[in-house]
């Protein structure tokens, strides 16, 4: 497993060169935006249950066949497995966001996930849709772009300092896209 710092070190070692100059710039921005990053991770972890359950129910609402007999979220035992998987994916995304590097997500979650889903008969299209809903919820919470209109009864704004966190929003979004790309 690597983080943003060890990723730089590993690629510098391949060239037997020290890390200096321009490579330090991206690490300095990680350090400078360190508190923003921790707030972003906190935004995901604090709302994990809400993000996951909304994504899974949203996925089912769009495709109600899933909870009819023979559907992949029927009976509750299988829907519970679905909720559990949503939480696992979100957890590894929160690790990747904390580390600033996708290696933990790749190695421990995505490696072989598609093959497992195919073997178990899980519809990867629906799974990808649930991840996409998690993406929009998580990025809205991190970037504070959520509104009462989109959040409804579950609307919540994180109590963090206002500022530009577009870089973190797109970084977090890229991890969700990575999951979607890996299973579809």
């Amino acid at each position, binding site marked *: *497993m*690597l*983080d943003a*710092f*060890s990723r*730089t*070190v*590993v690629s*510098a*070692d391949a060239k*037997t*060169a*020290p*890390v*200096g*100059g321009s490579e*330090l710039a991206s*690490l*300095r921005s990680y*350090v400078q935006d*360190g*508190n923003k990053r*921790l707030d972003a*991770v*906190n935004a*995901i*972890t604090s709302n*994990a249950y809400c993000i996951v359950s909304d994504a899974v129910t949203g996925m089912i609402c769009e495709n109600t066949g899933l909870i009819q007999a023979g559907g992949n979220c029927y009976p509750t035992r299988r829907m519970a497995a679905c909720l559990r998987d949503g939480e696992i994916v*979100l*957890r590894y995304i*929160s*690790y990747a966001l*904390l*580390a*600033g590097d996708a290696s*933990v997500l790749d190695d*421990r979650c995505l490696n072989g996930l598609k093959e497992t889903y195919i073997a178990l008969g899980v519809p990867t299209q629906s799974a990808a849709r649930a991840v996409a809903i998690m993406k929009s919820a998580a990025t809205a919470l991190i970037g504070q772009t959520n509104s009462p209109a989109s959040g409804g009864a579950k609307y919540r704004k994180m109590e963090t300092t206002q500022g530009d966190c577009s870089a973190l929003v797109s970084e977090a979004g890229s991890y969700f896209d990575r999951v979607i790309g890996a299973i579809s």
Partner: protein
Amino acid sequence: MKSVVTTVVTAADAAGRFPSQNDLEAVQGNIQRAAARLEAAEKLAAGLDNVTREAGDACFNKYAYLKQPGEAGDSQVKIDKCYRDLGHYLRLINYCLIVGGTGPLDEWGIAGAREVYRTLGLPTNAYIEALTYTRDRACAPRDMSAQALNEFKSYLDYTINALS
């Protein structure tokens, strides 16, 4: 690669939980000290060749017998390899300063070093002398800020202790 973040994530993953407040605080502590580390890494990277040369010269000055026939530095090729190795150690220290932990030194420098040096008949004293010279030569604020120097010297000491 062991670092504060990977240690925290490994522990959280083993417990199957999201990163907790404790984890975030641990990472925050690492980030707070990062500015000094990155400064030290930058200055070391910029002067790596000079530092290596001075350290190697110091070691051959103290142990002049190393250049005599039959010793570890009796040909230019072997002398060059000594300088190269010192450069490797300093580069690994640069990596440690980046990562904020001893992972790079442990995994790429120290693991197996004792066995290799024994097999090749190399004296570790010479490396210790070179790294000690570097440690005592470096000074703040000429080379880097005091806090950065503190970080740099702690990794030099770690390497010296590992070779002792």
